[in-house]
């Protein structure tokens, strides 16, 4: 589904990604883990076309020119983005926040389905987006890409600030959409949660992918990894 | 001045040359009325002077310089100083906008150089702020108000409703008008200050026909864009049909041109000069038009006349030394294309001359371009301006 080859990225004169190669297969959930500042967010921004100073090849479903398209074209090709700061609009109501992205996939969630899954959003749908609580904004950001029917989700720490109950619920949703064939590239600090939803994990350190592991390997080497990541 | 002795010319005039400076608005609201074409008019005066005197002229070396004061008094002030000091101007002409006009008067006083104001209407120039070197040439608020106010009243417009913009010019005009109307036996039923600038006068236009008794004349002291607004709306509310005539305090021929004569038809006002008044005027106007491709306003003619009279005075004095020229001007009487039966009053430096009560023709009577006015009568110089000694000028 998604292939990244030789990705480099800079801020000013500081290089934050170095020769990153990454492949995500259709219907897979893959996580990126790594310390703060490792470059995880930057990687997603490059894929999304939001970071200008990066080089390398990014392909989507065999479309090798994907990495050269403008951001809105990439989204239209079925990529949904949940940014790390949630990206909720203050000038739009909750419902408008949901309706903003155009439908880009064959199987979008309907508004009622979204509201059923996240009842608070229905209750608060006329409020300005940023008047929601932090966690509610996080839900909104996720619900927004689900409603657009994106086939590839790029989620930057979607469980941050969510209550344990909701984290669980998010896990269920991820498994559910995976079953529906959606692909997810997930940034996650919580290794435990990561293993409950994802198939494979990439360890990012100082701008490089230093290791790729499956769930079994993660569990087996949990202590080593925790030490490495400080998790 | 910092200018040293000039290079070679005759010693009768400072720096070996006479420099006339036109300081006026070449980009703002007065640009059409006067502006750059006034510079042309002054050049015409120089040429006529040289043609008239030839070798007898006090000097052959006469220059015309100019600056745009952009209607900003601070720029007028600096430029006036620069014109006198650096460009060795012997006289400054025009200077519309009263604050700029008064600022330049102070410069003239300090520098002891001559200054003929043409473009400004304030009577302060010949009142409390008069000085030895400043002359007020073409018109002023008293003249505008007095002529129209008394003439219209005498012709039957007894009851007046006056609207005036709420700033110094409007207030002055309103007072002079009221005085003139009362003196002529009329009555001011009401007078309302209006915002300035303003684009909606309906409040006042609706009030007029509802008044009891109904006024015969609506006197407006608005000028420029505001006047146009008011007249457009006066016509919209059809006040003329309701028997309320329009009388305008300050109107330039350029204003009539803006709206077309029909909008103003029948309106009376006082004019300082009209190009199509007689053959003498027409001849000069044709010469002017040949140069500039527009019909002259009174301000163009007045600039010409002022420049000419200055040069004549220098010729009479045989020098351009300011005090000597002032001496030759004070009390001098003359008659030229602009100023008929003119006298330079020694007491306050008001240049008095005949002025005209004019009426706007309807479009059907307009025969040629810019032929908008019918002169109803000539107001003689002696009556037209504020009587000596009433303005508070101490020279």
């Amino acid at each position, binding site marked *: 589904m998604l292939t990244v080859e030789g990705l480099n990225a800079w801020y*000013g004169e500081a290089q934050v990604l170095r020769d990153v190669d990454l492949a995500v297969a259709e219907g897979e959930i893959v996580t990126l883990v790594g310390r703060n500042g490792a470059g995880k967010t930057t990687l997603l921004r490059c894929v999304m076309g939001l970071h200008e100073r990066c080089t390398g090849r990014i392909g989507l479903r065999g479309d090798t020119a994907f990495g050269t398209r403008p951001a809105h074209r990439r989204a239209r090709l079925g990529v949904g983005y949940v940014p790390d700061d949630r990206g909720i609009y203050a000038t739009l109501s909750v419902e408008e926040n949901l309706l903003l992205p155009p439908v880009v996939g064959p199987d979008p969630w309907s508004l009622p389905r979204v509201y059923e899954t996240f009842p608070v959003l229905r209750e608060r749908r006329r409020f300005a987006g940023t008047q929601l609580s932090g966690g509610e904004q996080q839900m909104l950001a996720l619900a927004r890409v689900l409603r657009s029917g994106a086939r590839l989700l790029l989620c930057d720490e979607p469980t941050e600030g969510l209550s344990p109950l909701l984290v669980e619920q998010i896990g269920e949703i991820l498994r559910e959409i995976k079953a529906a064939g959606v692909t997810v590239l997930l940034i996650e600090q919580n290794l435990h949660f990561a293993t409950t939803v994802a198939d494979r994990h990439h360890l990012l350190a100082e701008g490089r992918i230093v290791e790729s592991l499956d769930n079994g390997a993660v569990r087996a080497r949990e202590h080593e990894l925790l030490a490495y990541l400080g998790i | 001045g910092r200018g040293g002795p000039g290079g070679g010319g005759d010693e009768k005039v400072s720096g070996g040359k006479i420099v006339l400076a036109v300081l006026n608005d070449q980009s703002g609201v007065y640009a059409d009325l006067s502006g750059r074409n006034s510079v042309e008019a002054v050049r015409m005066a120089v040429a006529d002077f040289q043609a008239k005197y030839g070798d007898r002229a006090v000097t052959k070396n006469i220059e015309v310089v100019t600056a745009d004061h952009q209607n900003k008094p601070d720029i007028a002030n*600096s430029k006036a100083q620069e014109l006198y000091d650096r460009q060795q101007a012997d006289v400054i002409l025009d200077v519309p906008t*009263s604050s700029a006009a008064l600022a330049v008067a102070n410069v003239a006083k300090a520098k002891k150089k001559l200054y003929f104001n043409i473009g400004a209407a304030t009577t302060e120039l010949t009142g409390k702020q008069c000085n030895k070197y400043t002359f007020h040439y073409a018109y002023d608020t008293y003249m505008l108000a007095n002529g129209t106010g008394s003439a219209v009243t005498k012709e039957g417009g007894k009851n007046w409703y006056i609207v005036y913009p709420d700033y110094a010019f409007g207030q002055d005009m309103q007072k002079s008008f009221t005085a003139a109307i009362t003196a002529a036996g009329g009555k001011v039923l009401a007078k309302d200050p209006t915002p300035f600038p303003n684009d909606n006068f309906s409040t006042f236009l609706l009030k007029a026909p509802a008044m009891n008794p109904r006024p015969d004349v609506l006197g407006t002291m608005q000028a420029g864009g505001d006047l146009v607004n008011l007249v457009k709306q006066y016509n919209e509310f059809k006040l003329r049909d309701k028997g309320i005539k329009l009388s305008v305090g300050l109107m330039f021929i350029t204003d009539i041109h803006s709206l077309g004569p029909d909008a103003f038809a029948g309106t009376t006002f006082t004019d300082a000069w009209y190009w199509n008044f007689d053959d003498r005027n027409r001849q000069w106007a044709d010469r002017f038009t040949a140069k500039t491709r527009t019909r002259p306003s009174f301000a163009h003619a007045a600039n010409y006349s002022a420049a000419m009279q200055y040069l004549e005075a220098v010729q009479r004095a045989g020098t351009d030394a300011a005090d000597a020229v002032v001496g030759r001007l004070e009390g001098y009487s003359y008659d030229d294309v602009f100023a008929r039966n003119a006298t330079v009053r020694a007491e306050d430096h008001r240049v008095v001359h005949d002025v005209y009560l004019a009426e706007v023709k309807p479009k059907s009577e307009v025969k040629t371009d810019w032929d908008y006015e019918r002169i109803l009568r000539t107001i003689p110089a002696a009556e037209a301006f504020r009587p000596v000694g009433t303005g508070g000028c101490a020279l």
Partner: protein
Amino acid sequence: MIRLFLRHTEPAGRRPLRYLLLAAGLLLALALPWLIYPPVAMDIASWALFAAALDLLLGYTGLLSFGHAAFWGTSAYAAGLIAIHSGLPFPVAVLGGALLAAALAVPIGYLCVRNSGIYFAMVTLAFAQMIYFVANQWRSLTGGENGLQGIPRELLGLDLSDPFVFYYAGLPIVLLGLWGLWRIVHSPFGHVLVAIRDNPARARAIGYPVERYKLLAFVLSAALSGLAGGLFAISHGFASLQEVNWTTSGKAVMMVVLGGIGSLWGSTLGAALVVQLEDYLSTAGFDGIGIVTGTVFVLVVLLFRQGLWGAGRQLGAAAGRARRRRPKPPAATEAAPVPTPTTREEAAWTPSPRG
């Protein structure tokens, strides 16, 4: 940003350069009436102070006042009236004008500082317009559109009628004002202003009463603008409605932007340029002054948002970097007066155009 750069982070090696620049600036100020026509030199000095005072708000507090003519003009009238009616030495009159401007700034500022950004600009503009109408109608005091004429220049019986001489009498006031501004910007208070500009909510949470800080900045800026306006009126010998017109506010803003927002010295450069341009155009025989000034303004906003000073500084920095060949830490480059990254993600994230 520029200002942060000016602070302690400045490498010690550049200190001498700064003193050199300062000395050169002072020398230029002293030599000005020899170089250009003295009344114009005086205009430049007054406007420079005005623009720099405005920059205290725009550059260091993040508030664009589009109504500063109210303070410049009020002080011009007040200084003129004091000089005419009391016969006191002109510096006293100018000081009186500045104080009155500051007093006027208290209620106006109180109402305005609760807004920020573009809102603030519009509100100040509207208040200034109110002052304009008052000045227009209060004819007995201001002379209406005739202006307040015949303001004397009194100083211990000296003859100041020559503008050349007057320049040197007035210059100390301007320098004092500029020094005052420099002091304010480089004071603990100045640091708080910058913090408030960057994030008022944060500043509040650490205990700064934001409104009151903004108000004090507003009043100080108004007082110094008043100082400039009073001096301007004395130097011209009159005060007119032009002084309280919105175009005067616009002109001052133009100077600040041209010189470089957030750099006091840049504002003085901007003032010199605009005054000279206006002076030049009045005799250039081109009847579209607005076309020229407007175009210059548009170009500056589009192409040199950091203004002359910022551009010069960047050139200097680039040269310095080339010499040292050492990468600089990444930093935002735009000298945006009020970056609000929550709504303008670009502001903080724009990568350095130097690349």
